[in-house]
């Protein structure tokens, strides 16, 4: 069966790829486009390690077909830093040691960025509910929550380390 030709925008760049009908977006990102930052944890939409932003909404890329990406705009973990300058959520994860093994981290960072994009001042409860679709088996979550709160404060222009 012939492959499907798909055109979309990934991390701001127009991309074209060929995929099988049943190939997930996660497999396309990793295997066809070489974007291996999105991780495969559960492949059933439970762990969030493969989280990407599609047309402004967070989704599990393991639960979307590559063919569905036609005409869509996708942001992966590789697209959230500004060149060499880390996104505030990335910087704060480092400062707060909000990771240990790091496997879940790309998913958390993409989900946290998406939250702060539309809610610059989330409460701790809002952050915890928003990140409920991202599992971490190392940190116990508290450091992640604090990193997101600190990133939010910095993005609001509040100096938290004065």
């Amino acid at each position, binding site marked *: *069966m012939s492959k*499907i030709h798909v055109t979309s925008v990934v991390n701001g760049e127009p991309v074209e790829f060929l995929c*099988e*009908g*049943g*190939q*997930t977006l996660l497999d396309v990102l990793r295997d066809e486009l070489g974007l291996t930052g999105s991780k495969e944890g559960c*492949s*059933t*939409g*439970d762990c*969030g390690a493969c*989280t990407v932003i*599609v047309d402004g*909404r*967070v*989704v*599990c890329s*393991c*639960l*979307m*077909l590559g*063919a*569905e990406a*036609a005409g869509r705009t996708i942001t992966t973990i590789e697209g959230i830093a500004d060149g060499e300058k880390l996104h505030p959520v990335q910087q704060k994860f480092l400062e707060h040691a909000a990771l240990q093994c790091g496997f879940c981290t790309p998913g958390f960072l993409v*989900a946290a960025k*998406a*939250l702060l994009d539309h809610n610059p001042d989330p409460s701790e409860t809002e952050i915890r*509910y*928003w990140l*409920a*679709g*991202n599992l971490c088996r190392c940190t116990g979550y508290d450091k992640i929550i604090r990193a997101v709160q600190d990133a939010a404060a910095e993005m609001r222009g509040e100096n938290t380390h004065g």
Partner: protein
Amino acid sequence: MAAMEFVAPSSIADAVSILKASNGNARVLAGGTDLLVQLRSGHTHPQQIVDIKHIPETRTIREDADGIWVGAAVCNAEIGEHAVLRAHWPGVVEGLELIGSAQIQGRSTPGGNLCNASPAADGVPGLIAARADCLIAGPGGERRAPVETIVLAPGRTSLEPGEFLVGFHLPKRTAKSGDAYLRFIPRTEMDIAVVGAAVNLTVDGSGAVTAARVALGAVAPTPLLVAPAAAAIIGSPLDDAALERLASAASAACNPIDDKRGTVAYRTKVAGVLAARAARIAAARAEQY
């Protein structure tokens, strides 16, 4: 899950002819949050995936003279953000918003929640209580069917071969009406309902219930419309005695399973408690509507 054809028709007619030609070897894709898991696990081996999200009717929320149309493939996050739906059908919206994480909300759909035919589907009791109708398209044309007639058994629907769900029609709201959905799970997020209860009711000027619909999830092989539970409160001022009758009728309708999430006795008891609480919330909303 590689050797499958992917097609994305842009009209109801095209989708129907593709599904008809597939002779039952196609699966309809809306949000994919259940279908992709089934493909992955080998539970289903279709030759074709038919993505219905390019059909405008499946992706639209629209008010009309008779109520509100909600496309089968609108994502649940969009439904949660829709001010008109929230204002008129808060119970329907809160059921659909309980489905999964932010990531799942961005993909999952009301049509998929119904057609996946889980007894525990959080979106379905609210739609049943709301008296929502399904618009179903197929080789024989289009037909309408109440939501409570769709799920026949776990994983099985009344849709005929070649048919697919285009969307839902919610009836026009009358004054002093309200609905609510409550779910019990052992933690606060990311779990499957142990019990779900939806109540939709109308009150009169004195606070007496003039119309009601009660629906339960996760307490039987299919979501249930429980007419005796509604009858237990119609005509009442929703006092403690009426709520007790409602709870008893809801519990009496249960035919649940025992599993790690809850025993038969527990589910049966909780169904009554949740139905009574949902009725109180629905009545409070009705007073404000």
